[in-house]
C-alpha cells in the first residue's frame, strides 16, 4: 500500500469528490438504501447485541492466540493436501502467487473479489509477469473494465450508476448488444456471458478468504453472485490469499460470523453462496490448492493495544454505509484499499501514519460506525488514539516546524490557559476585546488563517459581554 504516500491528503481529495455531483448522488442513494435495509435485517434478530459481543470476544481470543492458531491451520491444510505459504509483505505475497501461476504454465487467471489482493496490488504485479488477472465479481469487473479503483469494500463500483455501467459495457465488452438497456438484469446478463467464457477457459483461480477454520484447515468464501464458487471449484489450481487475522478456531465459531456478516453487509439473512473447502479432494474441484498467509503490517497492528481491535474486522462495510463523511466523499478520497471509517484506522496502522496521516482526522467522531460494527470495533476510540500517536510522533521528532505547528501551539496554549483559573478568566476578557475588529453587524463572518475554513460558509456569533461566571458572581455568589 505505497500509493497512500503519493495520494493527496484527505481534505484535498475530498474537495474534489464533493464537487462531483454524480458521485454525490450515486453514493448518497446507495448508502441510504443499504443503511435502511441493514437496520431492518438486524432488527429481526432479538439476540443481535449478544451476537456482536460473541463476535468481538471470539476475534479477541483469536488474536490473543494467533501464533498457535496459525500453526494449527497450517498443519490442518497440509494434512488435507493443501500447500501453505507465508508472506511477510505484499511483494512476497505477489511473488509467491506469480510463481505458482508460472509453474502452472498459464498467462491468465480468474479472480473472485479479494480486498487482500487489492491491498497487495496483485493484479499489477501479475501483469508485470505477463499474467492477466480477470476480475469476476460484477462490481469489481466494472472497476477493472473502467481502469478505475474500488471505492467501497463490498460494492467496489458503488460510485457508478447503471447508466454509466451500460455505457462502459457497450465500450468494453464485445458481446454487448447495441440495444443494451440499463436494466440491471440486462447488464448482469451481458457480464454473465462474458464471465462464463472466462470461467470455462481459465485453469487457475485466485480468491480471498473470509474465514479459515484452524481446527480442520477449512477455508471459506462468502459471496452473493456465484462467481466465487466458480473461481474456487472450476480451475485446476486454486490460490487463496488471506490476512493472518482471518481465522477462527473451530466450525462452531463460524456460526456467529455467518449470522453477523450477511446482515451487516448486504442486509441479507443469509448470503446466497458460502463456499467451504478443505485441502483438495480427488475428482472434485481443484487438483492443487495453495493458501498464502499474509502479514503485511498486521503483526504491527497486533502490537498496538488500542489499535489491534481493527483486526476484528470482517470486511462487512456497514461502517462505510452509515458514515456521514463517506456518504459525501465516497471511497476514493481515502486513497486506500480500505475506505471509510475502518480504512481511516486500518490504513494508517498498516502503511504508517507518514503515508496516511490525514485519515485519522477524516471523522467527526460521531460514532455511527461503532454503533453498527458487528464485531464492536470502537472506531472513534482508535481514531483518537491514532491522532495522539501522530502528535507524540511529531513531538519526538522535534524540529522547528513541529514546534511552530499552529495546531500544536494553539493546543499547548489552551492547555496552559485552562490549567489556571486566573489565566482562563483573563483569556475570556481578552477574547471579548480581541474579537472587536472581527465583528461586523453583530456577526463574525471572516476569520483569519486556519480558522477561515469555518467562516467560508458559516458565521460565528461574537462572545457576549458577560461570561457565565461573571453573571454568577453578580447574581448568585
Amino acid at each position, binding site marked *: 500500500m505505497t500509493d497512500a504516500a503519493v495520494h493527496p491528503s484527505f481534505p484535498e481529495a*475530498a474537495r474534489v469528490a464533493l464537487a462531483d455531483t454524480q458521485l454525490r448522488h450515486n453514493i448518497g442513494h446507495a448508502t441510504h438504501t443499504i443503511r435502511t435495509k441493514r437496520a431492518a435485517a438486524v432488527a429481526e434478530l432479538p439476540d443481535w447485541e449478544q451476537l456482536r459481543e460473541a463476535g468481538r470476544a471470539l476475534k479477541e481470543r483469536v488474536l490473543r492466540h494467533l501464533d498457535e492458531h496459525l500453526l494449527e491451520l497450517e498443519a490442518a491444510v497440509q494434512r488435507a493436501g493443501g500447500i501453505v505459504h507465508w508472506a511477510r509483505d505484499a511483494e512476497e505475497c505477489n511473488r509467491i502467487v506469480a510463481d505458482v501461476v508460472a509453474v502452472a504454465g498459464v498467462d491468465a487467471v480468474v479472480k473472485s473479489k479479494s480486498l487482500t489482493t487489492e491491498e497487495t496490488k496483485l493484479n499489477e504485479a501479475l501483469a508485470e509477469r505477463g499474467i492477466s488477472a480477470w476480475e469476476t465479481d460484477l462490481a469489481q469487473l466494472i472497476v477493472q473494465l473502467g481502469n478505475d479503483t474500488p471505492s467501497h469494500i463490498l460494492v467496489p463500483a458503488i460510485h457508478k450508476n447503471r447508466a454509466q455501467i451500460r455505457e462502459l459495457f457497450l465500450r468494453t465488452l464485445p458481446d454487448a448488444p447495441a440495444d443494451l438497456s440499463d436494466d440491471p438484469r440486462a447488464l448482469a446478463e451481458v457480464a454473465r456471458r462474458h464471465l462464463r467464457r472466462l470461467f470455462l477457459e481459465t485453469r487457475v483461480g485466485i480468491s480471498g478468504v473470509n474465514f479459515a477454520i484452524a481446527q480442520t484447515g477449512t477455508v471459506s468464501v462468502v459471496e452473493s453472485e456465484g462467481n466465487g464458487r466458480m473461481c474456487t471449484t472450476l480451475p485446476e489450481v486454486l490460490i487463496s490469499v488471506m490476512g493472518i487475522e482471518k481465522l477462527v478456531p473451530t466450525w462452531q465459531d463460524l456460526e456467529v460470523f455467518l449470522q453477523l456478516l450477511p446482515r451487516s453487509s448486504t442486509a441479507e439473512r443469509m448470503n446466497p453462496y458460502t463456499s467451504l473447502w478443505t485441502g483438495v479432494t480427488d475428482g472434485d474441484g481443484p487438483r492443487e490448492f495453495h493458501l498464502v498467509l499474509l502479514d503485511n503490517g498486521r503483526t504491527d497492528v497486533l502490537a498496538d493495544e488500542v489499535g489491534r481491535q481493527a483486526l476484528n474486522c470482517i470486511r462487512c462495510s456497514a461502517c462505510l454505509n452509515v458514515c456521514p463523511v463517506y456518504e459525501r466523499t465516497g471511497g476514493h478520497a481515502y486513497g486506500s484499499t480500505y475506505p471509510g471509517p475502518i480504512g481511516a484506522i486500518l490504513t494508517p496502522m498498516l502503511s504508517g501514519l507518514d503515508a496516511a496521516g490525514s485519515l485519522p*482526522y477524516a471523522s*467527526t*467522531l*460521531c460514532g*455511527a460506525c461503532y454503533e453498527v460494527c458487528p464485531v464492536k470495533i470502537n472506531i472513534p476510540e482508535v481514531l483518537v488514539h491514532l491522532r495522539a500517536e501522530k502528535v507524540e510522533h511529531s513531538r519526538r521528532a522535534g524540529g522547528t516546524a513541529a514546534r511552530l505547528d499552529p495546531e500544536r501551539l494553539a493546543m499547548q496554549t489552551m*492547555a496552559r490557559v485552562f490549567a489556571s483559573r486566573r489565566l482562563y478568566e483573563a483569556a475570556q476578557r481578552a477574547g471579548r476585546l480581541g474579537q472587536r475588529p472581527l465583528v461586523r453587524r453583530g456577526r463574525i463572518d471572516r476569520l483569519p488563517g486556519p480558522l477561515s475554513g469555518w467562516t467560508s460558509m458559516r458565521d460565528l456569533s461574537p462572545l457576549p459581554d458577560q461570561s457565565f461566571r461573571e*453573571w454568577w458572581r453578580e447574581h448568585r455568589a
Partner: protein
Amino acid sequence: MSVQRASLFITCFNDTMFPRTGQAVVELLERLGVRVDFPLEQTCCGQVLFNTGYARETIPLVRRFVRAFADSELVVSPSASCVGMVRENYARVAELAGDAALAAQVEAIAPRVLELTELLVDRIGVVDVGAFFPHRVTYHPTCHGLRMLALGDRPVALLRAVRGIEFVDLPEANQCCGFGGTFAVKNADTSIAMATDKVRAILDTGAEVIVAADNSCLLHIGGMLSRQRAGVRTMHIAEILAQAEPARAGVPSTP
C-alpha cells in the same frame, strides 16, 4: 426521587460563549427545588485537546476537574459531549498519567456527572418542568448525546411536555451536523457538505427554533443558518425548559 443540590459544570464553551444557557440551567433547577452551586475553579474538561490527539496536555485538566468537583454529590452539565468526555475518556487519561490516585478519583466522580436531561428525567423524575414556549420547534440529537450518553427520548419527552410548543420531528435526525470540533476547520469542505444537509432538513420542518442539548453543534448549525439569513434560531434545550408560563411564573411544577 428528589435532588437537593447539584453542582453546575458549565463547560468553558458555555461559560464564555453561551452564558444564557448556564443562567437557564440555574433558573430551571432552582424552580424545581434544586440548590445549585458553581465551583469557580472549574475551567475546561479538555475534550478538544483529547480528541485532537493532545491526551498528555489533558492530564492537568482532569486533575483540576476532580479537584473542583471533589465535594459535589451530583454534577450537572448542559453539554452532552463534555459529560461524555468525563464519563468515557477521563479514565483513559488517568491511565495515561499512570496515577492510581487520580484514576480512583475519576472512578468516584464520573458516574455522578450527569447531562441536564439525565438529571431531570432520571434523578429528579420530572418530564413536565412547567415550561411554556409557544413556538414551532424541532430537535437535533447531537452525536455524543445520542451515541455516547444514549440520552434516548429524554430530551424529546421534555420538549413535548412544554406547554404551547408545536414540536416537529427532524428528518434524518441521527445524522451528524458535521461539526466534530477541529474537523469543521481541518475538513471544512466535508463539514460544510454535512451542515448543508442538516440545515436543509431543519428548514424542511418549517420550525422557527432548532434545539439541541449541546451548544457546540448549535454554534455550527446556527453559523450556517445565520450565513443563509434563514430566519431560524438555535436554542439550547435548557433555555426552552427554563421559560416559565407567565401565569404560573415562579410556581415549581412537581411530578
